[in-house]
């Protein structure tokens, strides 16, 4: 399928246009966040096996020191976000609502907090060495999915990648972390790209940026190293363009086969902040101790883009920036795909790209009455993977799960929420699909 063009800018077909709400933070430079009195570093911050702690209670650690090692290939290392004392290695609440193993770390109050460097991994290293270094640096997808980056970069025998896409789309409303990273850390991004090109063997790199970040695109174009083979592509603003499947459609006109991998179409997509981390950490032999997070939303008083230590408790974070008295919802990520925080005792992880807090008034619009489906077709026009959400919604209401999966491709839904966003009847479509998918997975697991 040919990529769509409107006004000369590429994009994918369908999708929605939520209010961008980025103006309040997009111009604010990244600022360092202070250390909380107690950092709680979960050992499950990524998709895959929990990391295994290598520190004990009462042990003193230095900032950047490894505190947990990967448990197998589908796992990564964890590093101390601060120099301090390991208080406990115990369970802690997580965004999923489950308790997960975590390291409780009390930073030394008077410490200079210098970062301990490890063994650098130079660009001249072999692809295998670079992959091992990325795993050891604890790098996961910072766009939100937190998939271990080194797993994605491991190209199996017989496969090849021709195009590396660096994802600076940031289509989620409110969030401006990638925007700031592109403006302030372009050198790290290009260093990261060199590592990624080396590992994947791709010949070409495309940095994808939406038109609402024209300044970032301009800056990247100006600083683009002349020896790199690639380009910066400005895309039309549309949600969910940051989903890699949509990006492949928009940029390359290629579709990832259902249940396949991007490798099947010889492409690989990596978030721009993740790329910057690779470029920053590997030459110094460091691991991830902090990340850039947009703290925003109508309930936040001092909105901004902050470099926040991993493990910072949500309660400390919100108290530091100040929130309105009538705050009633906090989510990690943006409002389209972000997960609601079940409590303020959870902490910031590598996958947290934003913290958005809403007040009662901002939440009102989602309390509207539910009407019957009037077959307006808005959801059909919105769904980026061409499902029929209206029909799926009706099937889900009557729990016809096998019809949903076998005839109507339920499992291809990646839960972007565009259907629920546009539905004038306020039918909780994507919410029903999530429940249906969970039920299908459960019954499959039960059958196996």
């Amino acid at each position, binding site marked *: 399928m040919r990529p769509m063009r409107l006004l000369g800018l590429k994009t994918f077909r369908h999708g*929605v246009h*939520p*209010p961008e709400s980025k103006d309040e933070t997009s111009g604010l430079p990244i600022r360092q966040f202070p250390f909380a009195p107690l950092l709680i570093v979960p050992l499950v911050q990524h998709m895959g096996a929990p990391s295994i702690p290598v520190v004990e209670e009462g042990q003193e650690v230095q900032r950047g020191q490894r505190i947990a090692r990967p448990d197998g290939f589908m796992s990564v290392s964890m590093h101390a976000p601060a120099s301090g004392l390991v208080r406990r290695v115990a369970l802690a609440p997580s965004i999923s609502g489950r308790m997960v193993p975590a390291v409780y770390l009390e930073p030394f109050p008077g410490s200079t907090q210098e970062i301990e460097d490890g063994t650098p991994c130079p660009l001249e290293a072999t692809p295998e060495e670079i992959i091992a270094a990325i795993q050891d640096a604890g790098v996961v997808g910072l766009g939100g999915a937190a998939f271990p980056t080194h797993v994605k970069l491991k190209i199996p025998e017989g496969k090849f990648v021709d195009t590396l896409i660096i994802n600076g789309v940031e289509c989620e409303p409110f969030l401006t972390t990638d925007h700031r990273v592109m403006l302030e850390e372009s050198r790290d991004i290009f260093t990261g790209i060199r590592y990624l090109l080396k590992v994947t063997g791709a010949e070409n790199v495309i940095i994808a940026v939406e038109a609402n970040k024209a300044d970032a695109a301009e800056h990247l174009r100006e600083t683009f190293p002349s020896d790199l083979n690639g380009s910066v592509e400005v895309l039309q603003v549309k949600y969910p363009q940051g989903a890699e*499947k949509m990006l492949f*459609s928009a940029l390359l006109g*290629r*579709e*990832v*086969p*259902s*249940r396949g991998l991007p490798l099947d*179409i010889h492409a690989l997509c990596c978030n721009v902040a993740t790329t910057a981390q690779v470029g920053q950490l590997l030459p110094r032999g460091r691991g991830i101790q902090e990340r850039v997070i947009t703290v925003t939303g109508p309930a936040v008083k001092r909105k901004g883009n902050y470099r926040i230590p991993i493990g910072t408790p949500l309660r400390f974070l*919100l*108290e530091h920036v100040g929130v309105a*008295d*009538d*705050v*009633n*919802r906090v989510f990690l990520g943006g*409002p*389209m*795909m*972000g*997960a*609601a*925080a*079940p*409590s*303020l005792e959870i902490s910031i992880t590598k996958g947290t790209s934003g913290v958005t807090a*809403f007040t009662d008034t901002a*939440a009102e*619009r*989602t309390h*509207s009455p539910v*009407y*019957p*489906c*009037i*077959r*307006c*077709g*808005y959801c*059909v*026009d919105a769904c*980026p*993977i*061409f*499902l*029929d959400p209206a029909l799926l919604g009706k099937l889900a209401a009557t729990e016809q799960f096998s019809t949903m999966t076998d005839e109507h*491709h339920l499992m*291809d839904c990646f839960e972007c*929420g565009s259907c*629920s*966003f*546009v539905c*004038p*009847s*306020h039918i909780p479509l*994507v*919410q029903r699909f999530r429940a249906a998918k969970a039920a299908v997975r459960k019954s499959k697991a039960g059958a196996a």
Partner: protein
Amino acid sequence: MANGGKTLEIRTSPHILSGYSVDTIMFNVVLALLPVTGFAVFAFGLAGLLTLSVALASCVLTEHLICRAAGKPSTIGDWSVTITGLLYGLTLPPSLPLWMVAAGGVIGVALGKALFGGLGYNTFNPALVGRAVLQAAFPVAMTSWIPGFGAGRFSSLPLSTLTLPFTAPEYDAITSATPLALWKFSREATATSDLAMGFISGSAGETSSVLILLGGVYLIARNMMNWRIPASIFATVFVFSGALHLVDPTRYASPVFMLFSGGLMLGAMFMATDMVGSPMTARGCYLYGALIAVVTIVIRTWGGLPEGVMYAILLGNAVTPHLDRWTRPTVYGAKGKEAAT
């Protein structure tokens, strides 16, 4: 803590909505119908006003009472039955006996909408169901027209309007033929400007094409109407009737006449586009529009009736589920396996 010990709400994403709501969409359709409704009252005076009022009241009351009888909250607040009432009134001859107007309204909403389960579940456009029943039951009354802009239209009523139920209506000498009937039965063409502006006889709301288009364009601009449906109807009518006209201009009316006469404009803009009864896929909408256009022209040209828009749309409503199924788009990645190499 900062939120004073209040509990946080936990919901799953998305946490924002587009702001579109069924009642706002329906209310805007009502707004879009107001110009043509006002013109109908202006053109047909008291008779137009009474026809539209009785049509609206009978539809709204029927829905309200059925909801009450079913022990459910009334749904008239979603504005959809207001649209039905207005559209139904606009499709009627302004001199139709009022008891027939009321009967058709009750039947249209009760049989065409409530019986199926209310808003969203009706297969057919309720306004057209009511009209179709009247067309079958009272063929003469449904094809007796008074001309618009009569001198005493604001002070007197046509004799037929106040006919007692179940008695045959009497007509004044002033009934006249619609442009379509003139063409069908005496091959007499009407000036295009008269058609567009509405200086003709016909149903209350089908006379002023310009005001109907205006309302439609407003809804399309607000993304509350699927533009593909009227576009497909107009294009198909133009091409099909144009081809016939080229073959024999004395037997087949010109495409411009076909577009601007009868209920085509109102039907294409406001009734075929009823979201509940029209397809959801883009290709489905084009096919649906083309089908309605072809059936309309076939009935107008070769059928026994001078007008066929109503039956064409009802047929379109009936095949909508099939159109949706046949035109379902290929899911992302479904065809990727072969293309991947």
